[in-house]
């Protein structure tokens, strides 16, 4: 209590010095927390995006040849065919689990007076695993649907709302018109807001109704296993590509005849990217903290120098070295703790503000919608740790000049002015 009173007196009589020290500390902590918060926001948004896709999955698209081969010129459009699906499921069983395909058509879905224009994707049951979809009501396309070519439809909640604005869950089990054909609504899924809304139907149904007169099989999608590293994936992609290219008389090394979208390697790359962002954030953050520490130690140095005469007086009238040392250290700790806390609270407040504003900002690119920042906050533990680091570093920085001041002989200190 006595000591606190002493410190309060000095702090009050040296407002500028106290403010400057405090500012250095508060600013360091504040910047660190805001920086880490913003970084976390970016990273969280990325993770949320990628969480929608199963990481051990791949989608195969037909492309366009880039090399002439077997007397065929380059620039041919390649469309994946039934035999590619067969090749995929039969010849790569070591790694590939379930093979599905996706054949899309656009159509008009109507329920009485209400109608929507949408993309209808004919898919296999495994589609819901690969592109994670959350069912709100009913079920997804199943194996019996595929086998019996049932005319069933899975709508998004948004589409359902447009078709039945009053009570959209009631649409479940009802028949709707797709073009001139009746389809039964068997499920409603949750639209993730990023990505175009589409309706799902069994692959066999869509293919036989809308794609019967073409050899185009749409996209192939499958899940895989046993490819833990980037090299293994590259090796697999290479053999798989060569095999598909052979189906289409394309050069074995032609990388644009078919496109492979491997979510696993994409995730790996993103993880590396996120790792780099994290490291960069911490480095910048630590340097920010360091500048705060330098600020504190600089001011402590000046403070001690300025007060040498005062310490001389105190020593002459009976202050022991320890009481001088304690005075300086406790003062430094209290000032850094107090202002560190202020900086921490302001930083958290800034993050919360960012969360409330930018966190709900949806960027609409026309093709898809994305959130730039998701939960741009830092854990309280990190905040407290950063403040602790600052306090401890500030104390150590103050310790050296304080120790010198406590050791100085009173006559020398009294001479200093």
């Amino acid at each position, binding site marked *: 209590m006595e000591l606190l009173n002493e410190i309060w*007196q*000095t702090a009050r*009589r040296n407002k500028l010095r106290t403010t400057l020290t405090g500012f250095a500390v508060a600013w360091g902590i504040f910047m660190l927390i805001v920086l880490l918060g913003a970084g976390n926001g970016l990273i969280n948004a990325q993770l949320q995006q990628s969480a929608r896709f199963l990481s051990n999955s791949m989608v195969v698209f037909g492309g366009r040849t880039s090399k002439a081969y077997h007397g065929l010129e380059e620039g041919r459009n390649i469309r994946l065919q039934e035999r590619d699906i067969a090749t995929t499921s039969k010849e790569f069983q070591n790694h590939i689990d379930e093979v599905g395909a996706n054949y899309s058509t656009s159509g008009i879905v109507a329920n009485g007076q209400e109608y929507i224009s949408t993309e209808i994707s004919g898919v296999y049951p495994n589609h819901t695993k690969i592109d994670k979809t959350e069912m709100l009501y009913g079920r997804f396309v199943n194996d019996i649907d595929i086998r019996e070519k049932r005319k069933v439809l899975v709508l998004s909640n948004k589409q359902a709302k447009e078709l039945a604005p009053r009570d959209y869950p009631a649409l479940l089990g009802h028949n709707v018109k797709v073009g001139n054909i009746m389809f039964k609504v068997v499920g409603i899924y949750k639209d993730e807001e990023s990505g175009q809304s589409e309706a799902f139907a069994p692959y066999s149904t869509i293919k036989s109704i809308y794609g019967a007169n073409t050899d185009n099989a749409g996209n192939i999608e499958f899940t895989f296993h046993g490819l833990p590293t980037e090299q293994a994936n590259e090796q697999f992609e290479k053999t798989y590509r060569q095999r598909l290219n052979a189906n289409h008389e394309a050069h074995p090394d032609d990388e644009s005849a078919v496109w492979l979208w491997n979510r696993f390697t994409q995730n790996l790359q993103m993880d590396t990217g996120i790792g780099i962002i994290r490291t960069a954030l911490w480095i910048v953050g630590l340097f920010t903290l360091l500048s705060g520490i330098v600020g504190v130690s600089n001011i402590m140095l000046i403070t001690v120098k300025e007060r040498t005469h005062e310490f001389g007086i105190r020593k002459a009238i009976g202050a*022991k070295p320890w009481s001088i040392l304690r005075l300086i250290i406790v003062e430094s700790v209290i000032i850094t703790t107090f202002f560190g806390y202020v900086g921490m609270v302001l930083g958290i407040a800034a993050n919360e503000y960012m969360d409330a504003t930018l966190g709900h900002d949806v960027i609409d690119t026309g093709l898809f919608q994305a959130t730039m920042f998701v939960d741009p906050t830092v854990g309280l533990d990190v905040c407290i740790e950063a403040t602790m680091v600052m306090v401890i570093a500030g104390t150590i920085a103050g310790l050296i000049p304080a120790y010198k001041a406590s050791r100085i*002989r009173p006559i020398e200190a009294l001479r200093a002015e």
Partner: protein
Amino acid sequence: MIHLENINKTYYGAQPLHVLKGINLDIQEGEFVSIMGASGSGKSTLLNILGILDNYDSGLYELAGVRIWDLSERKAAEYRNHMIGFIFQSFNLISFKNAVENVELPLFYQGVSRRKRHALALDYLERLGLLDWAEHYPNELSGGQRQRVAIARALITQPKIILADEPTGALDSKTSVEVMQLLKQLNCDEHITEIIVTHDPTVAEQTNRIIRIKDGVIENS
């Protein structure tokens, strides 16, 4: 009260300087003594040694029966706090503390409770006629008032001796007389041992005994 025997002190700089060359001195309890000498005579060094602010190379120094030799900083601070009251030429008050807080400070280092030392400090200020100025900061006080605050601060621990280094050096002649009268009165009424270092003969004349120091030795008067 003070017993000095063959005190030697040399400052080792670029040129070693033998400042005190065998000082022998005895001061009894209740004495009012002045130490006179030209600048460079070693009188300030002697005062610093008496005040345990500096150490000496050889000899014997006993203060109130306690041998002062090879003390740790902690012990020296404790002795200064309990046995010696300092009065400086430049007052040496702490600028961000008001009069009463300055007077309280030595008791703070003795661990005296806040209320008790505050009451005691006010008591001493009253005795020196400064009660109305207790809440004033040093820069709001005149030179004479500041020196009286410093005297109160020196007295509050009831020390064995008061050491005054040119106590009137920064004061005009009128206040000088007042401060000297005060010191004299303290000696007369309360039998406090006082040692005043000065080069001013009018100040020295008011003390009961004058010790002249020249080139590091005490001149026999």
